[in-house]
């Protein structure tokens, strides 16, 4: 069964077209991540799915039901917001209960659901606290709990980790992945952080300017991007794009991932090291070629390179990608 079906979805604000002909099918239990630069329409698309924005044209179906004209509360969704959006005047229990109370659920059912969510998220000690008495991480867990108790057909996450610090972000990421396994529910997750996208997603949807650029599993997008935009967007540090001519390659540009470059005695690329980042496990070099192109090199382990050093670089030609002048992938 399909959890979500988007057909030719368009959305405009006045004369500005924010979403252009979006089509997407999400299978039951899938974890889908929307990524893209800011302003690409990923949050708007999520709000369209939630029913917080109406579509200008097209159809939205959730769980096989056409919900294009259904209000958010009746779509069978739950949403977790970047700013947590907890009700400030209610305690943790009240926050989780509100949606069910509005839906007229039985009091016993509400208590059971809250007990389940509380157990899953270890929120027992905080049930009687107000949101203002909780830390950021705890607030986000309450927000996730508020989504879980509704037992929705579809979970929507709007950049839920962007307000957390790095350590907490990692812990919450693991928690969301665990929840997805335990609940087996369909989830849609919006982020601009590609680590989150790569680690959480079954499939990633890359958006740009209101259009879907490519849909695929994280490794498909990394290994086999459809165009220059996806190639540059997925992977960190991002892919190097060098003029193809001097390297004897077809097309306009050759895309080389920083991790497929290596320092060699003799190589097709020569340049000066302008910056060295030592991360312990990796060493990143920024190399500027005589033609003013900047190349990022990712070396595994610790290496003793200095700024100002002249080096030569070699790369794995089988793993380099060719693009034409319009940014389209050339396959050989």
């Amino acid at each position, binding site marked *: 069964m399909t959890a979500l079906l988007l057909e030719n979805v368009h959305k405009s604000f006045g004369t500005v077209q924010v979403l252009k002909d979006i089509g997407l099918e999400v299978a039951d239990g899938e974890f889908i991540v929307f990524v893209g630069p800011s302003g690409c329409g990923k949050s708007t698309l999520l709000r369209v799915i939630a029913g917080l924005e109406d579509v200008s044209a097209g159809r939205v179906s959730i769980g096989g039901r056409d919900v294009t004209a259904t209000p*958010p*509360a009746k779509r069978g969704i739950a949403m977790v917001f970047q*700013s*947590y*959006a907890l*009700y*400030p005047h209610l305690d943790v229990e009240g926050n989780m209960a509100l949606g069910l109370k*509005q839906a007229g659920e039985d009091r016993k059912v509400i208590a059971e659901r809250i007990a389940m969510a509380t157990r899953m998220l270890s929120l027992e000690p905080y049930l009687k606290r107000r949101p*203002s008495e909780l830390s950021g991480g705890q607030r986000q867990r309450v927000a996730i709990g508020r989504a879980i108790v509704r037992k929705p057909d579809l979970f929507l996450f709007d950049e839920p980790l962007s307000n957390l610090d790095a350590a907490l972000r990692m812990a919450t990421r693991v928690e969301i992945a665990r929840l997805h396994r335990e609940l087996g529910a369909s989830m849609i997750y919006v982020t601009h952080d590609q680590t989150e996208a790569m680690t959480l997603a079954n499939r990633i949807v890359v958006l740009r300017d209101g259009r879907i650029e490519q849909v695929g599993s994280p490794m498909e997008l990394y290994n086999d991007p459809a165009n220059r935009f996806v190639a540059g967007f997925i992977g960190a540090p991002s892919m190097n794009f060098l003029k193809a001519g001097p390297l004897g390659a077809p097309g306009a540009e050759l895309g080389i991932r920083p991790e497929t470059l290596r320092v060699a005695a003799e190589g097709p690329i020569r340049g000066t090291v302008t910056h060295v980042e030592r991360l312990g496990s990796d060493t990143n070099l920024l190399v500027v070629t005589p033609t003013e192109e900047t190349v990022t090199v990712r070396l595994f382990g610790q290496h003793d390179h200095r700024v100002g050093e002249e080096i030569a670089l070699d790369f794995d030609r089988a793993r380099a990608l060719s693009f034409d002048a319009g940014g389209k992938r050339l396959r050989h």
Partner: protein
Amino acid sequence: MHKARHNPLNSIAAHAALLTWTAIALFPVTVILVNSFKTRKAIFREPLALPDAESFSMVGYQTVMKQGDFFLYFQNSMIVTVASLFLILLFGAMAAFALSEYRFRGNTLMGLYLALGIMIPIRIGTVAILELMVDTGLVNTLAALILVYTAQGLPLAVFILSEFMRQVSDDLKNAGRIDGMSEYAIFFRLVLPLVRPAMATVAVFNMIPIWNDLWFPLILAPGEATKTLTLGSQVFIGQFVTDWNAVLSALSLAILPVLVLYVIFSRQLIRGITSGAVK
């Protein structure tokens, strides 16, 4: 407490300034209160002296109680003020919510139109208002005053409240929508509690001018049954003779209810400020 940041000189200077200001602000009120308990002679001989055994007199209060229906005036003022405040806050907040929350054609224009009322004094339209009230048979009713004061208070209320409501997080309102709350529930249960400090500000700003107003009661509701306190007190002020005992007593009594209302609203103000601070 904070020794490093604590400078006794600064503290003394700050307190001196605050005390001076308090003295200046309280002086007229004190003079009114003190003199309302004195005989007429004592008021003019030594206006600043406290009442003693010889000069103490309740004659002012007795006159006030005897002359006219003072409790009725009191009640009228209270009804007019409270009802107007309620309507200003209710309709002002609703209009502000609509203007700040919904995108519709003419939103900005509507906002400007409502804000125009801040700049144009309602008293300019007195004659038209009076004609309107005569035509609708509302002259000499409290409803006439309530309607006028509501109209007078709405522009500023809409202006201030819509500014505050824009700051209420969209995510919060959307979370309410996903949880199945109606737009009214979102307005009353999520947004209103969060803009409570702004509501208190609007209430205080509107309350004092309404309570003290003489103009509209005199023109629209001068009848005995609908006199407000301010208008009622005017009987003691004559062109040639003024019963100062009665005037001062009436003023002293008139302070009380506003004081009570102000205490209620200012507690909201303070609570609003501290709840934001500990977040």
